[in-house]
């Protein structure tokens, strides 16, 4: 067997490994219903903040806990807990993307990505500002 064949086989094996790892490490877009059926599995949920309900952040007692209610694209509502500081201007968000899994009764988010509408445009093509907050454990 020639060296180049061995190298070729190794490279192909690594490439397949990379593809598998990309697919397996990738989160899946889902709604809360899906997340509730698969507790503990990582999902990425797109939805909106429910501004009617309480957004709780009490840094005096715990700077690393922040909770809110979110409605996904299919209208399911879910309480979300984020172990980290509340992102600035969170109330203004128009769309929220969270990554995490259902733990017990609450959705525990590892990452929040939010989009805020800019005030200067009244058209629906509003420019979006994105802010990421991440909890690192």
């Amino acid at each position, binding site marked *: 067997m020639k*060296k*180049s064949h061995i*190298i070729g086989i190794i*490279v192909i094996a*690594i*490439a397949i490994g*990379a*593809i598998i*790892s*990309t*697919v397996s*490490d*990738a*989160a*899946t*877009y889902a709604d809360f219903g899906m997340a509730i059926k698969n507790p503990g599995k*990582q*999902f*990425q949920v*797109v939805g909106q903040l429910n501004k009617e309900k309480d957004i709780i*952040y009490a*840094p*005096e*007692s*715990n*700077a*690393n*806990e922040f909770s809110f209610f979110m409605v996904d694209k299919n209208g399911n509502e879910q309480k979300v*807990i984020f*172990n*980290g*500081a*509340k992102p*600035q*201007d969170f109330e*203004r968000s128009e769309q929220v*993307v969270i*990554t*995490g899994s259902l*733990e017990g009764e*609450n959705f*525990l988010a*590892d*990452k929040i*990505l939010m989009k*805020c509408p*800019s*005030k*200067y*445009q*009244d*058209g629906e093509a509003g*420019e979006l*500002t*994105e*802010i*990421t907050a991440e*909890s*690192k*454990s």
Partner: protein
Amino acid sequence: MIEYIGENLLAGQIGNFLIFLSFVASLLSVVFYYNSSELSLEINSWKRGGRFFFRLHSFSMAGLIGILFYLIYTHAFEYYYIWRHSSSDMSMKYIISSFWEGQEGSTMLWAFWNIVLGNILIFTTKKWEGSVMTIYATVQVFLSAMLLGIFPFDIQIGSNPFVLLREHADMFNLPFVSNPNYLGFVEGNGLNPLLQNYWMTIHPPTVFFGFATTLIPFAYALSALWKKRYQEWIKPALPWTFFGIGILGLGILMGGAWAYEALSFGGFWAWDPVENSSLVPWLVLVGAGHLMLINRNKMKSIFSAFALALFSFLLVVYSTYLTKSGILGETSVHSFADGLPGQLIIFLLFYLLIALYFLFKNGGQFLKKSEEDAFWSREFWMFLGALVLVISAFQITLSTSIPVINALFGTTLAPPAKPIEHYNSWQIPLTILVTLFVAISQYLKYKKTEVVPFFKKITPSFIISFAAAIIIAVLLEIRDVFLITLLFTSLFAVLANLDYLIRILKGNVKKGGSAIAHVGFGMVILGSVLSAGNKKIISKNRTQVNINFENNKDANNENVMLLRNDTVLMDSYYVTYTQRRVDGKHVYFDMDYLKVNEQGRYQKEFSLSPFVQLNEQMGNVPEPDTKHFLDKDIFTHITYADLENLDSTAQDTYREPDTLNLKIGDSLFTSNSIIKLANFERSINKEKLNLQEEDIALGVKITAKTLEGKYYEARPIMVIRGNSIFSISSEIEALGLEFGFAGIDPDTGKLKVLLAEKNKNSGDFVIMQAIVFPYINVLWIGIIVMVLGSLLAAWNRMMSGKSTN
């Protein structure tokens, strides 16, 4: 027809003419150069025509850039681009940044570097001029087309930077359009606050310069395949390739410096899709440069040299597609939403198909004929190194392209939930291999190396770096096996190349470009392992009371709350949040870092002022402040601050009082002091207080002692008049405390004391994060060394190329 006041329409008209001219001229340049593309030194009229039109294109593109700058500089908000990206209160460096904030401006920046390089290539390409410049001019056709902004058959071609604000699709039916004097009140939207940073003035032009250089090896490689001269292209293309490696590397790492200084990533690299898509072309370019080196004399792996030289530029175009088409959408912090996806796809496919066609049609013969390199030869290990770089680029591209995969195959994959872990799990092992190859390959000779002398030469640096890695790992408490291995291999790469420079090259710096670049590369990796792999979040010592850990099973203690004047122990420092300052759009939070001296007193070591940039339109942006030491950085970042009640009147207002039930002798904490009910005061001067004779008045003396030991008093008074009770309150102004005395509970005998605090007292807190990055200077120095080494190598290649001709 409305006569608008104060509009500068002439500049836009000239600009539009120049866009059209630059498009047509580049097209004509393609036609003329194509007809002179045979490899020949002869200068015929086709070639002269090609030059003429390329220069005409260059002049019009330069003029176009000048006009856009002029309009931004004069705050000509009648133009949408100017209004959208700048405002009249910006300083010069941000005026420059706002030029390329938008898609049109960044396209012009790219085109600018292409015309700079193209005009140099006209003189240096000699017999390759016709073919190389044909390819150059086609790229300029695509870039100019992206500025056209015309709509034939309802298809948009290009996005024009000179569209008027009042004619823009988002604006034309808004009320201001009918006001002839709208410029009197329209103010620019301003630059995204994230981009208001000096790195953003220099990082984009450097990256685009790097992007533009990848076109040179591409154009040479494609010309060579096209004209079937499979080896001659390498010598003239090599210096440019190493030049590109230096410049693009510098640009990417400048982006890292920006992220570190201005973003809240808490680090300089976060595997963000936009970062990735500029790193990938660089990795491939590095691979291409090394493969070109081993094939310049003997074509053993020429096919892969062609492939990488071509793909570096193709990946630049792909990267442009990712960032400008908006496809990254939800996955990236900084993707530009408005885009011309279709046009970018055509741009990409055009070059991809042409490159693949020539690569396989004319280059395919080399795929089968490839000869094996000897195991103990430099070319074998360089080839392996390039292969690892390709695998690394492949893995990054694959994971970054998840949105593209979704679009192509209709899948619903989301990007990795933990991107840093995901990418690191692949890239750390691959980097271990690359650094190992970097360490040994200088000592290997081309063709065949004597094994014993090779091992003799390399042993000292091997032993020293192995021992040093173990010592460092123990001292810095690095536990991860992969990180320790990478620590060793990167140290090995640095030391082996230093040793090579000193002992083998005898300090001949001129010849040592590659050794120096490799030392720098090793230092970049070493610095990353030491600082990012070993960063220490110190803002987790929670000395406040009332910490609630319920529901917080993954308790991550990265953020800490600091009340104003509160002192909290963090690592070896005591940190005090001393004050909040508002300066224009910036709200600074001053943090004093203290240490306890020999006398047991606090002593200030330094202050940091992280700030929040207020931006009504785009959201407030916190920016960190970092103290740089020789051996570490201390990074301080505001994760949350109450930004309401910022003005001083609101600060000086009392909040609703709390009612406290206390006995004489009781004491309690306020936000800034300990108060104590000292005693009753029975003798009240009623006349002075304008009370009536029959009123019953009782005072209470309250003492307040601050943590610094200062002492204050307050004397609220309870007054009983007939059936009603009221209180005359008493204030301690220095502490922002107000007391009232509202009655006595007849059953318990406890006093009802009203306590109000000013907003500025306990309302003033921040949530902050502090991170220590040890030895991050190794990284920054490594970048400079690597860039200098690459440029030196490029210079050397250019000189040796000249002497052999």
